[in-house]
């Protein structure tokens, strides 16, 4: 086993007499602090400056609508669960409750589907639509398991982190609110996070390099992002 011995007289010299008399230890320390006096400010002045969360950031949930970027097996899932095939702009949720099954705190969710009330000869006869989708985010710990379980990439994390309300009722989001959150997010940053099949692409970045506030926290010397692996471009 590689062992490195540390300790006074082992890898640290004790103070010499000259150091003791002339306070050299303090002077050296002051040199370091004075050096910092001439550095640029790194404090991000929230809320006047805001660091943009990274694409992977796990914030408030959203429910995505159908927009033509579904996965290839989306129709198969819709058929399997006897859901009315959604039009563009309708929710992707197929009420499979996989998200609830993966969640460590299942009572966050309230998911119900209802049968369509149409006559027998209607093409949608016997099919269902999503009726209720409530999430109590007051109990959520933003672990991301639900989003990994969703077969249609319907439930997603957005970059919203401010969830303060005056009462706990504000933490319960229904499906309209959730859909709106997701639509906003996809319009703002969808292409950063998802490719045209709603998967995480390998060009998904660590963070947005144009973000000046983040660069400030990195002492205005942020890393230049490049490919990770030998065969990545």
């Amino acid at each position, binding site marked *: *086993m*590689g062992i490195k011995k540390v300790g006074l007289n082992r890898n640290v010299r004790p103070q010499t007499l000259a150091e003791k008399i002339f306070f050299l230890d303090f002077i050296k*320390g002051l040199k370091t602090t004075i050096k910092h006096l001439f550095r640029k400010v790194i404090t991000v002045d929230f809320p006047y400056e805001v660091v943009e969360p990274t694409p992977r950031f796990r914030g408030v949930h959203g429910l995505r609508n159908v927009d033509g970027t579904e996965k290839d097996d989306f129709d198969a899932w819709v058929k399997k669960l006897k859901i009315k095939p959604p039009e563009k702009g309708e929710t992707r949720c197929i009420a499979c409750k996989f998200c609830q099954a993966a969640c460590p705190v299942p009572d966050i969710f309230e998911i119900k589907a209802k049968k369509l009330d149409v006559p027998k000869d209607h093409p949608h006869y016997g099919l269902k639509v999503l009726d209720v989708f409530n999430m109590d985010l007051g109990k959520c710990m*933003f*672990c991301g398991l639900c989003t990994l379980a969703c077969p249609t990439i319907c439930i997603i994390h957005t970059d919203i982190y401010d969830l303060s309300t005056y009462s706990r009722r504000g933490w319960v989001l229904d499906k309209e609110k959730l859909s709106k959150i997701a639509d906003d997010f996809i319009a703002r940053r969808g292409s950063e996070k998802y490719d045209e099949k709603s998967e995480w692409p390998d060009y998904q970045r660590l963070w947005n390099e144009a973000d000046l506030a983040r660069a400030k*926290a990195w002492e205005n010397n*942020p890393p*230049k992002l490049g490919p990770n692996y030998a065969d990545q471009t």
Partner: protein
Amino acid sequence: MSWISEERLKKLAERFGFIKIVDNPQASVIEVPKENLIDFLKFLKEDEEYQFKMFIDWTVIDHGKKADPRFQGVLILMSPKNWERIIIKVWATDERLPSLIPLWKGAKWAEREAWDMFGIKFDGHENLVRMFLWETYPYHPLRKDFPVRGYEEVELPSLNEKERFDQLEGMMNYSRKHTALPTLEDLEITQKKRMPNKKSQMVLNWGPLHPGTHGTIWFLFDMEGEYIKDCDIIIGQLHRGVEKLAENLNVQQIITYTDRMDYIAAINENHSVCIAGEKLLGIHEKIPEKAKYIRTMMAELSRINSHLLWLGTYALDLGALTMFLYTFREREKLMDIFEGITGARFTINYFRVGGVYADLPYGALDAIEHFIKELPERINDYETLLTRNRIWLKRNIDVCIIPEEDVYEYGLTGAVARASGVPYDLRKIDKYDAYGEVEFDIPVGEKGDSYDRYLVRMEEIRQSIRIVEQCVAKLRKMSKNDPFFYEPEDKKMKITIDGRGTKLKKGEVYAGADNPRGELGVYIYMPKDGIKPYRFRLRSGAFYNLQVFTKAIIGRPLADAITLLSTIDPVVGETDR
């Protein structure tokens, strides 16, 4: 895996006829009758060949109401001579077990915890009081017949929310009933019971809400002037029953709860659960190379993160405010990297049993390299400020020495053990993930004073940088299409990234990772295949390290309490679980 060798185990069984070797491929387990336990342990501890003198864990399994006997004690020991482990099980007939305090002083808190959680009495324990809950609490929550939600019997009207006179319905409404809460009298009784014999004039309460205690720890000091004569610690203000919760979750869901234990180094906590889960499933050698290196790299970054926070707050406690600002500047960058890779800054939940949940995003390795390149220079800066500063030397050298025997007696792990001269490091012993393939040294201190603990941690940061560099170099050579999650060839085995249906195998295992705060070991006991673990024990390094505080502080002035606590560096989320 470092378990007692087959041949030594056989020899042991020949010598002691009463030993029963349990058939278990993942760990070496023996059963010993209660009458012979103490003599047998004495032999194990003192015999030249075995020398199982290091205490690791001592806990209980509840086999359910119908089983007779119902409870079983589980003792895990380590031999520093051969670096190997053994699990010893003993039936607790009449809900009683012999106390192990004469053999290992560290058993004191473990037994109090077992009494608190299971209601097992220990014969010969000097003061068997509860560990986490208050003294008048009527239940023992880890018993199988105690419901997960507890008994909701106190009315707290504030839980029920009304907004402008409307009665809220469904999810928006909360039940008015709450599980039991301690009242002031309860706390007073608890405090008296914890320190029954006052030795001197005054008992000083420190905490539970004092910034110097780094969380909600409540210290009781029996003081003679400036000097501490006796000490006890009341913890449990942050107890959430993670072990109980874990019994009702699948293994990937448990990882999210460990995020909330040692929240400073959440990645390392996740790591422990993954290592144990993989060992139990027997897939620890088949984890994809890429996942192994990513995990090793992230775990070391998290160690740096944790040590930076430790250094900042420690120096702040001893009066050096500037350090705090400097280390937080560096830490902020690390948090940014974590946020980009995992999606969260604090409660990470990135590792999975079987790998990690996603590959690295574009640019991750560049950011890590950038950070690692400038860190050594910053650490040199910190060291010029502190290491040879006369105030720093005066406040640390020879303060609260923890001798080598105490490491074995109390089951100390992590930097605290290494500073006392014991090179105990699971990364070298178990070689989990990529630790067998990267090069690094274990820093070892000389005498175990606070200064040694400081130097050991500083050196650990440097060694972590070394490991991260090697991991980055290795990852650079891999392909973007390499898998990051293990796909079982065996059709019967099911492991998923989201955790649905992830199944554990019959057997029992103890495994863990070397975390910034000591060894977080996970003991999983599965009587049959299943999704939920039957018993999920978290052996917290911070908990056992904190225990030695009560001894090392005796005879020291009050001002040293801050130094000692900072150099032990517990996190209350992990001690309380």
